[in-house]
């Protein structure tokens, strides 16, 4: 989670920690040695496998061990094909064990590249993957920390893999935004769903994002989404004018917020408000430079380009 304070430990606790670290280090070294010694192309040592699980639970970032386990899984798969019996229960059981291990590792560290990747890799090889469970897992981790990009990416991978219904994902995205609209990841996910395919959805999303920027103009994630929505060719002139008026009103309430002016710039630049576009832009950019002097050069450039 973000913004956590680290606790300073005293000298004594430092020493204590160092001792514990040394112990862990020795255990780790011995473990790795043993596992790598027993590596083989055709078979694997069950003890080593168990040992790797232990080490990974403590530290899921040892990608060597994840890859070792992948090798073991491949061996198991090969064995299962060679077995005459058509029953893949044993194999499925094996896969489930791997998934359980990744879940355990995720509990202790929801942001480990290794755990997420291993999970996805297993699902790709799994003969009967339970995708609904994966969605539930995603939902759980997103609600624990809605900025966990591993989780968002995982969701995107699954969606691409099985092609879920758009309506469901839109509902999910709307729900996330309702819970907390200050989340760039939620907005970004929404934009990847490619939902702006008709005027209705454009209008709806315009309203949604307007709600966000008005409720909290300081939150930048909503402004970025607004810019993206505005870049859609389907925005009508009336919508633009309405938005412009609303932004003017908002500016009266929040004169210090540069994003409102920037939004006005986006609107005007878009075209078909040509009447006094250049004049307005000049005014806007002058205001922006006053509010945000550190970016003076940038604003001057923006104006020049137009």
């Amino acid at each position, binding site marked *: 989670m973000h913004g*956590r304070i680290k606790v300073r430990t005293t000298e004594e606790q430092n020493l204590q920690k160092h001792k514990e670290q040394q112990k862990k280090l020795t255990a780790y070294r011995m473990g790795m040695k043993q596992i790598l010694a027993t590596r083989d192309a055709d078979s694997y040592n069950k003890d080593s496998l168990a040992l790797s699980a232990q080490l990974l639970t403590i530290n899921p970032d040892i990608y060597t061990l994840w890859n070792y386990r992948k090798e073991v899984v491949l061996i198991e798969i090969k064995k299962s094909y060679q077995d005459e019996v058509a029953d893949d229960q044993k194999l499925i059981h094996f896969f489930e064990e791997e998934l359980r291990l990744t879940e355990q590792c995720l509990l202790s560290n929801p942001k480990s590249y290794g755990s997420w990747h291993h999970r996805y890799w297993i699902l790709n090889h799994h003969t009967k993957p339970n995708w609904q469970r994966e969605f539930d897992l995603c939902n759980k981790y997103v609600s624990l920390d809605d900025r966990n990009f591993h989780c968002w990416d995982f969701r995107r991978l699954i969606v691409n893999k099985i092609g879920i219904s758009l309506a469901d994902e839109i509902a999910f995205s709307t729900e996330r935004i309702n819970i907390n609209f200050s989340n760039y990841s939620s907005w970004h996910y929404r934009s990847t769903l490619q939902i702006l395919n008709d005027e209705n959805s454009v209008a709806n999303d315009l309203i949604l994002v307007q709600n966000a920027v008005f409720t909290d103009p300081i939150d930048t994630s909503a402004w970025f989404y607004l810019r993206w929505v505005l870049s859609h060719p389907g925005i009508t002139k009336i919508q633009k004018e309405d938005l412009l008026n609303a932004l003017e009103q908002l500016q009266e309430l929040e004169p210090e917020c540069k994003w409102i002016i920037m939004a006005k710039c986006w609107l005007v630049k878009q075209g078909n408000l040509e009447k006094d576009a250049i004049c307005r832009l000049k005014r806007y950019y002058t205001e922006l430079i006053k509010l945000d002097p550190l970016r003076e050069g940038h604003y001057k450039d923006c104006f020049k380009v137009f």
Partner: protein
Amino acid sequence: MEYELPTEFDIIIIGTGVIESIISAAASRIGKRVLHIDSNNYYGGLWASFNLDAIHKLSANTEVLEPPTDLLNPDETTFALGNDFFSLKNFKTDWHIPKAETQPENENVEEKNEPESEEKPEKPMTQESLIKDGRKFNIDLAPKLQFARGEFVELLISSNIARYSEYRSVSRVLTWLNGQLETVPCSRSDVFANNKVTVIEKRMLMKLFMALDSGDQEYLNYDNKTFRAFLTDKKLTPSLIHYVLYAISMSTDETLCLQGIQNTKRFLDSLGRFGKTPFLFSMYGSGEITQAFCRLSAVFGGIYALSQPLSSLIFDNENNFKGLICGKQRISAEFLVMGAEKAPPEFIKSPPRSFIARAVFITDRSIMSSEKEHLTLLLYPPEGGKNSCVIIELGTLTGTCPKDLYLVHLISQQVASPEDDFKHCVENLFSKFEDDKKPKILWSCFFSIPDSNALDLKTGVPGNVVLCPGPDLDLDYDDAVKKAKAIFSDLYPDTEFLPRAPDPEDIIIEGDTEDRNDEDEVVLKPEENTDKVAESETEAKSDNDQEVPKSENEHEE
């Protein structure tokens, strides 16, 4: 059952209302020998909760026992306990459904047009079916909500009494605006998601919230002006003023600006701690609250006795309290604390002149239907000469009523009578006929609680005796806690009020450096419907430094 109580204590407490129970816990906690005693066979006194059977049997305790005269010393006098001033008035219960399936007519029933169930495949509700489930009801006389960051919750946490009770968070706050029920936007996400408020109104509301939060100094000029005037000057639209004035700050048109601001801050401060609204409700009813404090008192040695034959108090010729006559025993103590309703009538100099109007309904659906069950607080604004009403709707998940039924409490400062005072609410929110949309009242109960809080309960009362007021109109227990604290520090000055009791998990074994018990975390017990409680638990945790087993930066790559 004949048994004898010990005959000497440091303090005797008569009555198990909230204030008495808090004092009992505090005294017991600092090592005083406490006798906490009640003539009722239940805990809670005027703050108790009852199941459906027991509430029909509530009667004023008017029996006056004759004290045995051989227990008195010369020069001592007695005063008989118990008075009529504070007992429930105008108590009335009514069924609005038939008694049983085969008997559509019954003299007990206030007949409502119940069309034959042509459309409904389920059986119509009968008194019989409700009474069968009667034990699943927990009907509070004085229901309350707790502010998540209010004094009461802080007391529960600091004293660790929190572990004796469970809570659910109120999931929505409603108000009555322009002839219909509207959700009050409390938090940022509420304001965002609300589609009855324009975008500019959203901005204004958020600005106001943030200004109040940051301690804006502007309102110092509004010393004698009303909160409504302040809000109007801030250019809030009428709807917004309604939400802020009547709902969020629970004020009236006459409330002064500073008070209104304080109320608003109280509301906003408690947001986000345990859920989407600032409020908690005690599972199984507010009657559990008194029991939680009694439990702590007992843990530290307090002696408890219910159903006691209390007859009178003994005073010496200097008007000091000497003892209590209970059955055949004389029990003495240095101090006596009692609920105002237990006191001898001679101690009550001025009878109560204001009352709390109350109504309780059992209904068949929510006042505002939705997919999942809500715990609703409806703040009904003042209307037509009537005062504002607090309406609390409880579903089965609160442990106060059976499945598919709702318990609705109405509380208001009485103007005429409970039935009169709530008539408009009843008409607007409930139907007495088969109406698909509005909930039907299956059972109703009206009564008035005399308000003992503004009274002078000190004059004419002997020095070592204290009278405790009963239920008040405050939504939370803050006032009750204040009063209990004041009484306690009068009795035992320079002592600590309910210091935290250690619990087993707090004891740190040498060498274990990881554990830090988060003081802010109220442990809400897990339930089947996990969305409310789990949400709250996560949110409570995210408030503080979370202890996560450190996943190592110490490994070697």
